[in-house]
């Protein structure tokens, strides 16, 4: 009888401690060992995505910072040694994807960038990739290849969606889409994942061969312009802004082609991304651009982002009479050559 009670008591205790333990593991605990002149300094943690903010004084060459685990994220670290002795800090990121304990070995003089971090799988993967990419720094294509292979190998890891979000633009859109598709849903649902997905959408809808969807924008006199109205013509769509010197340099080239072919089924549509309407109107007066002019919407409504993958100015597209994208970024004489090829 006594035995049984003891057994039950033991089981209950065991169950309770398991429950307590699993509660205890809902945090991320950073345990640091610090060498060098650490006396009087502390370690700070912050995260502008989750709002986490914490710090700990270094005592006996050690520090502990414990944060609730909420989502896979990157926490940023610095030491007050950096701010006080070196006069400033560059935050050091540690990727975290589950509750647990992460060890940091820090030489306070050398700083976090030289520290050793263990206990975080995504951090180890990320660091490995950065070293690999660093070795082929100047070879954009090789970097994209290595990144792709790395993503394929590790597609269950938070590090992958973090990297695709930050650096994935170097990988061509179809490959990027396939890679993204292979990720587990919970990674796709993170804010990093959503950004990757929307960039893929923009890049795809502006890919060669895609038909540009109709859109409506305002002309300088505030009347509406519809892309549909140009159906049946070859249209050169030029994204520019009043403040963009390289855009202005293209205008004479565009004008030359426009004057030669506008009565043969060629049209030019200038889409300004100027936020300042006055600056746009003034630039239209200053520069001689006798073709159709409209101004893009702002923010998420911008055609430049939702229907075209405009990241730099100028960016241009040539669409055929059915609205299909047949060329991109024809600069200088390249536009004239292409149009000659089509009409002559």
């Amino acid at each position, binding site marked *: 009888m006594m035995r049984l009670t003891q057994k039950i008591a033991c089981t209950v205790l065991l169950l309770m401690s398991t429950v307590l333990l699993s509660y205890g593991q809902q945090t991320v605990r950073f345990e640091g060992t610090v060498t060098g002149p650490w006396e009087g300094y502390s370690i700070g943690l*912050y995260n502008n995505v989750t709002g986490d903010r914490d710090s700990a004084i270094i005592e006996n060459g050690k520090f502990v910072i414990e944060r609730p685990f909420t989502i896979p994220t990157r926490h940023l670290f610095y030491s007050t040694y950096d*701010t006080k002795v070196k006069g*400033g800090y560059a935050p050091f990121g540690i990727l975290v994807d589950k509750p647990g304990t992460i060890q940091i070995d820090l030489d306070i003089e050398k700083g976090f960038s030289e520290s050793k971090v263990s206990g975080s799988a995504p951090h180890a993967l990320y660091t490995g990739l950065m070293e690999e990419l660093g070795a082929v720094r100047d070879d954009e294509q090789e970097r994209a290849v290595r990144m792709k292979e790395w993503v394929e190998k590790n597609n269950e890891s938070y590090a992958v969606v973090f990297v695709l979000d*930050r650096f994935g633009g170097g990988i061509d859109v179809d490959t990027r889409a396939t890679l993204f598709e292979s990720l587990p849903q919970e990674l796709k649902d993170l804010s990093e994942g959503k950004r990757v997905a929307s960039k893929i959408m923009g890049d795809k809808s502006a890919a060669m061969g895609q038909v540009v969807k109709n859109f409506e924008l305002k002309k300088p006199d505030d009347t509406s312009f519809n892309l549909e109205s140009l159906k049946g013509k070859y249209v050169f769509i030029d994204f520019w*802004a009043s403040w963009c*010197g390289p855009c*202005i340099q293209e205008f004479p080239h565009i004008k030359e082609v426009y004057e030669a072919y506008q009565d043969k089924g060629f049209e030019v549509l200038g889409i300004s991304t100027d936020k300042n309407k006055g*600056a746009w109107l003034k630039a239209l007066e200053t520069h001689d651009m006798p073709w159709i002019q409209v101004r893009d919407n702002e923010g998420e409504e911008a055609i430049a982002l939702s229907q075209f993958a405009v990241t*730099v*100015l100028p960016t241009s597209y040539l669409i055929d009479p059915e609205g299909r994208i047949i060329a991109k970024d024809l600069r200088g004489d390249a536009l004239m050559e292409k149009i000659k090829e089509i009409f002559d």
Partner: protein
Amino acid sequence: MFKKKTVARLVGFVLLFLIAVPSAKAQLLDPVKWQFATKKISDQEAVIFIKADIEDGWHLYSQHVNEGGPLPTVVVFTTSDDYLLQGKLLEPKPIVHFEEMFKMDVAFFENQVVFQQKIKLHKPTAQIKGIVKYMVCNDISCLQDEKSFAVTVK
């Protein structure tokens, strides 16, 4: 104007940035890397450093560019009871060129620039937040972007 010690600290600050961040130049076009730091200069005063590392060939524009040309760099600090801005955001002497396209003088920075904002602290510890709005151009293209920051003065 700068005391020797301040200069030495500034040099240290710049050196720190040179060594501190592993390069990750994988993004297609991200020609400016921003970094933010703070330095307490007395119990009640601190300086916020806003540093841009600009890739070769790209120009980041000064805060002082006339209308009708490239857009100036603008830093907006979030107002807070914890601190007060003292004076304007300082920038080093920019490179000034007459640009034919705009028919005007244009002031810009190359390689690297550190903007500095002095603040008066109302508390021993303060968090300073803000956003940098900027554009950069090289010979063939321009892009416009912004970068938020949050730094702590202790």
